[in-house]
């Protein structure tokens, strides 16, 4: 089973490292993700140096098929989000094998 990290774990790390109150850490982390969402929602790309880029792409309309019935379905033009990891992130995550985790 893959261990899952959630927002609360990130908040805890910010709290430990930065030394605000827990309430402030919660608020700060929430605002970071809200702000990222709002930027992308406005149609703007987001580049976090050393981490990754979040880019928006417009997809043209196309005709696909319902795999069950074989009927053609029109897929409307839409915008999708793509994720492009930075070189640094790729280097850090490409560890073979995973180093054992001590917690």
């Amino acid at each position: 089973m893959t261990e899952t990290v959630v927002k609360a774990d990130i908040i805890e790390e910010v709290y430990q490292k930065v030394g605000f109150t827990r309430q402030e850490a919660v608020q700060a982390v929430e605002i970071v993700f809200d702000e990222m969402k709002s930027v992308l929602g406005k149609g703007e790309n987001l580049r976090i140096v050393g981490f990754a880029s979040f880019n928006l792409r417009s997809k043209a309309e196309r005709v696909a098929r319902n795999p069950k019935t074989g009927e053609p379905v029109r897929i409307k033009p839409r915008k999708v989000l793509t994720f492009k990891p930075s070189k640094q992130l790729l280097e850090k995550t490409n560890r073979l094998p995973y180093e054992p985790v001590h917690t």
Partner: protein
Amino acid sequence: MTKAELVEKVAGKINLTKKQTEVIVNTVFQSITESLSQGKKVELRGFGSFRIRDRNARMGRNPKSGDKVAVPAKRVPFFKAGKELRELVDSEDS
């Protein structure tokens, strides 16, 4: 938007200096990076999830010369936008 602009935006919304906000923003991304490098999955409600995908070794080609090259197996980070974010970027006003 760049990270510096994100920091500025966030700093404007909380009562912290740009410096303090930068530390927070850096910690957030370092934390995600660290978790991924340990093979953990990161799930952020309303935003999306980050995880590692395994890529098998394969034979590739040098697009310039056409020579065959062995591409080794690797682990790459992968992001899947959550429903909320997916709908947000595809909404009419964006």
